[in-house]
């Protein structure tokens, strides 16, 4: 089942749809030389065909709307419909960001309230809603930390990152011109305090950490780590990708983190969209507040206004006020859940992960001792050694069983990693069925490893030749015979 490219469905002689034509008057013609020479080769297609094309493409996707999506670190929980209703309200969707403040008091109020809610959840003093995603939030936070140190005239050029960290952490540091030093994980999967201490120096700008870490384990010694880093004048940055384990249970701010990003497209149920848009608000403790991006939303005498007068601010990290539509969705979710509901969600997430982990004991290798928090990492190392069936093969086998695959080969510290995050919105029935499916795939690894190495079959396509694809990349359609 494949679908032609929309360009391949174009009818060369089809005329454009009726469009609003604007003024009936005669305007000036475009001056010579400004008109484009070649018309862009966009498709000419009727609305019925357009819609059918995308309906068919949609049917080729697995999504959390139809499949269990145990993608570790991604928190693929259910995205409530109410969020979508909220974001589509004309009172939000049709607002111009440069309207007079008096005409957007509701929007500013929402931003103000959302900021407070996120601050309450994470235990920080202020939050910027501007960053567009997690990585953007990481970078924004590091920029603030950088500004903080610079203001004090300190030369801190190093960021400490655990070896289990997500790739965006070192990449964000690099984008700030900072050097990355890796901190080892101890055998129990947690940060090695000895190695951390060894790497501390007055050049350390920050330690980036997520807690629970990417193995799904709570960093028990977080307070010690925090005081070690603070001891050398460094800051602690919290990667919020794993916040779904902690809402109402404990707060990064209380652990000693100075800056915290939150993935609204993970913990706060805004849809992931096949790769965004998300939002990565950043919360900070008081001493970083002066460096928050501009503008902030302030309340004065019951009215809301934007504050652009922030001399110590790092400036802007994107245009306007962030991914407002995403923020509306997240706030809708927070209102609906309430403090009680959010706490329940995190508890249920931990419960689901531990339940599934238990169900997989003896089926897959579980390199670290439990309990886990909201996710856990299994390994296909044994299968690889014994049957030549690697983590990717297990993943593909699961696709055949009608499940999306766990995250594979991350974190890097676990060989043949399969990182599994069920989330609180899955029922026990689903977890049981998934555990059975994993067992079935593992069974097949023993019986017919070769077949599994060629899985999946029966999906729209089989395994792709990704090596050739990267060697001679074809990154766009071109008409038959055309090379440009």
């Amino acid at each position: 089942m494949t679908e032609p490219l929309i360009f391949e469905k174009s009818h060369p002689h089809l005329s454009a749809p009726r469009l609003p034509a604007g003024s009936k008057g005669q305007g000036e013609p475009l001056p010579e030389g400004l008109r484009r020479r070649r018309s862009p080769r966009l498709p000419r297609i009727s609305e019925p065909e357009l819609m059918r094309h995308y309906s068919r493409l949609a049917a080729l996707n697995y999504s959390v709307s139809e499949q269990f999506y145990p993608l570790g670190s991604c928190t693929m929980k259910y995205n409530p419909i109410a969020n979508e209703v909220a974001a589509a309200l004309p009172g939000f969707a049709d607002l111009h960001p440069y309207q007079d403040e008096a005409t957007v008091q509701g929007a500013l109020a929402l931003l103000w309230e959302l900021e407070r809610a996120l601050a309450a959840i994470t235990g920080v003093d202020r939050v910027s809603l501007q960053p567009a995603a997690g990585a953007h939030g990481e970078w924004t936070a590091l920029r603030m930390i950088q500004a903080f140190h610079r203001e004090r005239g300190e030369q801190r050029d190093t960021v400490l990152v655990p070896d289990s960290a997500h790739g965006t952490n070192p990449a964000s540091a690099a984008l700030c011109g900072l050097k990355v030093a890796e901190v080892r994980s101890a055998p129990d999967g947690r940060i090695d305090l000895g190695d951390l201490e060894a790497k501390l120096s007055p050049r350390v700008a920050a330690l980036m950490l997520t807690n629970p870490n990417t193995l799904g384990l709570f960093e028990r010694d977080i307070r010690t780590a925090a005081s070690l880093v603070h001891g050398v004048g460094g800051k602690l940055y919290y990667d919020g990708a794993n916040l779904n384990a902690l809402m109402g249970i404990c707060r990064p701010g209380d652990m000693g983190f100075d800056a915290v990003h939150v993935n609204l497209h993970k913990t706060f149920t805004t849809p992931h969209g096949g790769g965004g848009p998300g939002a990565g608000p950043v919360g900070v403790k008081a001493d970083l507040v002066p460096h928050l991006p501009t503008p902030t939303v302030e309340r004065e005498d019951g009215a809301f206004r934007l504050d652009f007068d922030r001399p110590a601010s790092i400036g802007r990290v994107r245009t306007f006020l962030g991914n407002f539509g995403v923020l509306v969705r997240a706030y809708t979710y927070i209102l609906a859940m309430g403090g009680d509901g959010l706490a329940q969600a995190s508890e249920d997430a931990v419960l689901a992960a531990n339940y599934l982990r238990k169900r997989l004991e003896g089926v897959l290798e579980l390199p670290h001792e439990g309990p886990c928090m909201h996710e856990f990492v299994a390994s296909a190392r044994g299968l690889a050694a014994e049957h030549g069936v690697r983590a990717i093969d297990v993943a593909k086998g699961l696709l055949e069983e009608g499940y999306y695959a766990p995250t594979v080969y991350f974190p890097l510290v676990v060989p043949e990693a399969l990182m599994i995050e069920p989330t609180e919105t899955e029922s026990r029935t689903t977890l049981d069925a998934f555990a059975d499916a994993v067992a079935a795939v593992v069974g097949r690894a023993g019986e017919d490893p070769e077949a599994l190495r060629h899985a999946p079959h029966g999906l729209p396509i089989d395994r792709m030749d990704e090596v050739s694809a990267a060697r001679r990349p074809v990154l766009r359609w071109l008409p038959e015979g055309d090379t440009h």
Partner: protein
Amino acid sequence: MLDAMGASSLEDLLRDIPAELRLGRLDLPEGLSEFETLQRIRALAGRNRVYEDRLTFRGAGVYRHFLPASVAAVMSKPQFATAYTPYQPEASQGTLQAIFEYQTAIAELTALDVANASLYDGATALAEAAVMAMSHTGRQRIAVAPYVHPEYLQVLRCYADGRGFDIVELDESMAIGPETAAVAFQQPDLLGSMIEPAGLVEAAHGQGALAIACVDPISLGMITPPGEYDADIAVGDGQQLGLPPSFGGPHLGFIACRTSLTRRLPGRLVGQAWDGKGRRGFVITLTAREQHIRREKATSNICTNHSLCALGAAVYLSYVGPDGLCRVAEAGYRNAHILQSRLTALAGVEAIRSERPFFSEFAVKVPDPVAVLERLDRAGILGGLPLGRWYPDLDRALLFCCTEVNDDDAIDQVVEVMSQS
């Protein structure tokens, strides 16, 4: 479930968390039913003023356009909206093919070779392009032409401050030298004027620098695209391609470049591939540029991008098609020119930079911008943006914008109100 796993209580599962860290109670109100939640949210939405499309004459980065209903219909399909980044191609062909089609459409629009799968917005796209240019040239300075959107410039500065590169503003003297990594310009510029990019591109190339064009995607239905004046990288914001203003986001940043720069592109790239049965499909490719593989050596830190918005843009471009896009551009152009000539014919309204051709935005000076805007507002009109917020020397200027959704009646109304001064 607790029983089934032999845990005595949830507390047991949370035992790794030190007691002193445990939170008593989350300080937020109790949850609400969906009905009450949306009642609260609707009340907030109700406290905002929505101007009619046709009576909106403000742009400066976010525009009211006709939004085909099919765009939202496709974007809201749960199979697109609730999928993750397409890591498993066999189960993600819908997203992958849609992005491949988006990449093609952006490459066509900009007349460049390759486009990525999307970035956050136009400003971060410009910043990423600057980073590309620096890595490519090994140089540390970006020269920026006048009247690039001030917020784009602010974002560029924020990236520059971190990464450690210089931003210089190009004045008439064209200070482009051997230390320049790239020359960046906006076409049309913030004031709506059409600049002459060919000269800038030539000057850049003459010094071994790259040329980065920040463009309006609707304008490209009609006016010369970056590839036709030899720019190396084109960036811009995709809001105009079918996405609602939404108080400024989410929209998308697009970036396109020549083939020679492909491996410096930030973010996802989708490429064509084949399966064992000879079926064509699509995969995320050239990942050796990306953070999850290269970590601190990656071309960018971006991970989650704006995929769903890119899908929306692709739907929009397919809906209007090449002729439709041209007509949308022409309608905005025509409206703006008619409005500009009628406004500047009014006593007290002065054209700004009238010597330059403009596309669909233009600035005029009025004696009292605040009063004018208030009068327009009372007539339900969102008038031009006061430029004093960014340019002290333009503190009496208003930047008006037209698109295809303004009609003769609306134009008459603006002129009528503004003639009453």
